[in-house]
């Protein structure tokens, strides 16, 4: 299973990738904004996307709205990892096509639970 991690913070990408590796997921590709995320998806594909919201160039919401318009990624699970945790934020993210939501700061256990949830385990 391939994961795509989209976050403008290299620290956060490394934390999420380290967490995924510890959970046994070694196939992880990264992008630093939504535009780069679309390029990675086009060239390499992914089975599950983990994305930040606030990013320069293309935000996480724009990224999700864009990929949801393509037949290839209309149903790809997307986990949003963000500090935007107000009720209105969550509603907006779900409307954009987010499958599930992780609020920063987070524990590795939370990431695991949410991944399991979006994969229907």
């Amino acid at each position: 299973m391939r994961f795509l991690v989209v976050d403008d913070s290299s620290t956060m990408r490394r934390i999420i990738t380290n967490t995924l590796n510890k959970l046994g997921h070694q196939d992880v590709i990264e992008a630093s904004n939504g535009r780069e995320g679309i390029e990675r998806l086009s060239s390499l594909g992914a089975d599950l996307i983990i994305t930040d919201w606030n990013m320069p160039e293309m935000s996480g919401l724009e990224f999700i709205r864009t990929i949801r318009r393509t037949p290839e990624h209309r149903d790809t699970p997307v986990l949003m990892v963000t500090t935007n945790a107000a009720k209105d934020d969550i509603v907006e993210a779900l409307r954009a096509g987010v499958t599930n939501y992780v609020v920063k700061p987070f524990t590795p256990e939370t990431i695991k639970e949410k991944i399991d949830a979006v994969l229907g385990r």
Partner: protein
Amino acid sequence: MPSWGGEAPGVMARERPTMRPNPQIVEKLVEATREVFETMVFRSLTTGVPIEGDALRPSSNVVGTVGFAGSQSGLVAFYSTLDAAREITGAMLGIEPSQVNGEVPDAIGEITNMIAGSFRTKMAAEGDAWAISVPTVTVGSDFYIKPMVTGQRVLVPFRMGEAEVFVELILMRHPR
């Protein structure tokens, strides 16, 4: 003056305090900071007594800032020494502080982003709707932030083991 006794070594006295933010708002900022450190840095912080107004300014090498705007506008700033920033970065990435090289600005930016974001969420629960900016990080020597507007400011000192870090909230006055 910090609650652990005596003036914090990294803090210099300057001017008299001016305006004080609502203590409940400061408490939310403290909660947000402690949660971020416990969850992402694996460190418990001891909170000092908040310093109001423009009275004290931390000596620091690394400052992260995130602006916010909405029902109120202002700035959340995180201050630390370079050694403390290396410790924080190493803890976040699971490496020794001595192995930390160019990762400090990004890690401190993310810490500031999480503190500001978590604070924003707590304020949203009280009916305050804000948008926050992407973080900015400055690395240098012995500097502080001087906002060019009238407003309220509070600086909260925290002790992290032997190190001190500071979180400042600047609330700007909306013109009437």
